[in-house]
């Protein structure tokens, strides 16, 4: 649900500050963008008059155009999945551990594409973009976008790149939802679907977390009904709070205990006040405030809402297998034992539906302590499973 890499282990922090571009990285990358000027009819019934997608590509498309992989990012992710934008960049792309030459998503064999979602804030059209009708930022006038709409835009990008059929569409969390939607909506355009740490629909508890996050943003006095751009301000406290809540749910109890325990900041005695005492408080505040610098509050509202709305089984009386009726792709489904936001039980629902549909499916339940964030981390068994599966895909498509 996030593009995190920013927490976790010491070696991650080390890899986040390269003296030089590490081996097995895609290296320096430059985002590209494409403008689509035809109106896009959205699931909500409204039309987006035109839109831009920002995306990155790694590796080379083969002559047969058969070796392309689409990566779908999660809530706070973006198109920058791997590599560095400039030599001094502190942090590589959000899936640097998994995308690169010789890595599971092997850019020496595959042509890998990742696009920023519309509604997001990293360059693709979203609520902070200018509404052509008013000449001012859309704010909350931006139409509601859904997982289904995102798949539509990604398909237009595939057309633009001349890719008829992806070797695989791969995504974690919200990205995994996009992968499922791809398999349902455009079955002829992907061979393999890799659904990681996802769920067929959010639970009430999950929607509840999202609603608390949205309320934190919308009740911030600096929110101004989403028109904070004009006020030259932003709902910093609300967005930071939203991020702090989200962050707690992306980690496991175990991971937090291991990382922070009850350590006080700098080993100091209690302040007997309301300043930061515990390391975990300090960490969360830092996560919240740094997130405000790189993410737009309105985008957070839109994307969490798209998460809440995702429920392909709803049109089939809750029967997920029926929703998968059009699908023909082969699936790899991966979950993580300590993930309580998108638990293994949710992935098993997906597997059961695919089994019922007689679709080819492989399922791996990875033992991990890092909660939902596991999908971003180089957990050895995860790397093995994904690498082994995609190596077969590469053989199959002649990559």
């Amino acid at each position, binding site marked *: 649900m996030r593009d995190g890499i920013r927490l976790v282990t010491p070696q991650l922090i080390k890899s986040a500050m390269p003296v030089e571009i590490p081996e097995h990285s895609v290296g320096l990358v430059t985002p590209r963008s494409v403008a689509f000027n035809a109106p896009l009819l959205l699931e909500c019934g409204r039309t987006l008059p035109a839109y831009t997608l920002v995306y990155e590509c790694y590796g080379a498309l083969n002559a047969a155009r058969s070796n392309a992989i689409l990566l779908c990012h999660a809530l706070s992710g973006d198109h920058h999945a791997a590599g560095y934008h400039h030599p001094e960049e502190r942090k590589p792309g959000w899936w640097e551990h998994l995308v690169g030459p010789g890595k599971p998503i092997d850019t020496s064999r595959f042509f890998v594409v990742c696009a920023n979602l519309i509604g997001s804030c990293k360059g693709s059209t979203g609520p902070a973009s200018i509404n052509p009708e008013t000449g001012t930022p859309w704010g909350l006038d931006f139409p509601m976008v859904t997982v289904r709409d995102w798949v539509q835009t990604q398909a237009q990008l595939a057309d633009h790149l001349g890719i008829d059929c992806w070797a695989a569409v791969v995504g974690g969390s919200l990205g995994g939802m996009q992968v499922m939607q791809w398999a349902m909506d455009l079955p002829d355009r992907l061979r393999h679907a890799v659904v990681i740490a996802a769920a067929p629909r959010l639970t009430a508890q999950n929607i509840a977390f999202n609603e608390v996050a949205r309320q934190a943003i919308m009740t911030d006095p600096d929110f101004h009904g989403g028109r904070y751009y004009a006020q030259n301000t932003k709902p910093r406290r609300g967005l930071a709070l939203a991020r702090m809540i989200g962050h707690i749910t992306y980690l496991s109890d175990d991971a937090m205990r291991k990382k922070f325990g009850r350590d006080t900041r700098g080993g100091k005695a209690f302040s007997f006040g309301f300043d930061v005492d515990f390391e975990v408080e300090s960490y969360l505040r830092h996560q919240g405030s740094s997130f405000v610098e790189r993410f737009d509050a309105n985008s957070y509202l839109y994307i969490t809402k798209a998460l809440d709305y995702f429920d392909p089984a709803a049109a089939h009386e809750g029967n997920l297998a029926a929703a998968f009726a059009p699908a023909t792709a082969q699936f790899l489904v991966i979950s993580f034992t300590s993930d309580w936001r998108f638990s293994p039980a949710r992935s098993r629902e997906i597997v059961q539906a695919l*089994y019922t549909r007689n679709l080819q*499916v*492989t*399922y*791996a*339940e990875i033992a991990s302590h890092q909660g939902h964030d596991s999908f971003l981390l180089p957990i050895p*068994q995860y790397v093995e*499973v994904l690498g*082994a599966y995609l*190596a077969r895909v590469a053989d199959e498509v002649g990559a």
Partner: protein
Amino acid sequence: MSALRPDLAIIAGWIRPGSRILDLGCGEGDLLAHLRAEHGVSGYGVEIDEARVVAAIRRGVPVIQQDLDGGLRNFGDQSVDTVVLSLTLQASKFPLDLLLEMLRVGREVIVTFPNMGHWHARWQLAVQGRMPVTDALPHAWYDTPNIHLCTIRDFESLCRENGVAVHQRVVLNDQRRQTWLNRLLPNLFGEVALYRCARVAASPLREE
């Protein structure tokens, strides 16, 4: 592809080409890889061990990582033609539940297990007074995964008592071969027993 282990080759011969199967405790997917490549069989392996899951994936075998002791609830009634449980029944926590679940999921089941009635096991227990350690049961008592050992007679009485019809039986010796001795005294000379069973009582026991 290397030759299939003799017991797996017999199982492969029992599975109809083009059918859909579930191979419980599939290991590295040997049986399914063979059946998919040679007999147009589709289906899934089920395996709990991490390394074996990866090995099966490498061979292109669809594998579902799952603990069989947690049941088979995620697989629908009669959703496959055949459910295979090869040399794993004795390691399950609830062998009868598992057998009945297999019969719910598959129209037919194939079960194989090491025969505790084999003379070598009997010798070690009766004469040497030690827990048997044999080729088919290579673990010491304190670290064995095999917690529900049975003999051929035990298994057949379990089937009788639970309305399970045995359609076919093959008994192999310690060389994994069928000999006249296993045929004559299977429970004494059979080291591995292979059964093809179904829910409904049908054709009587046919010795191969």
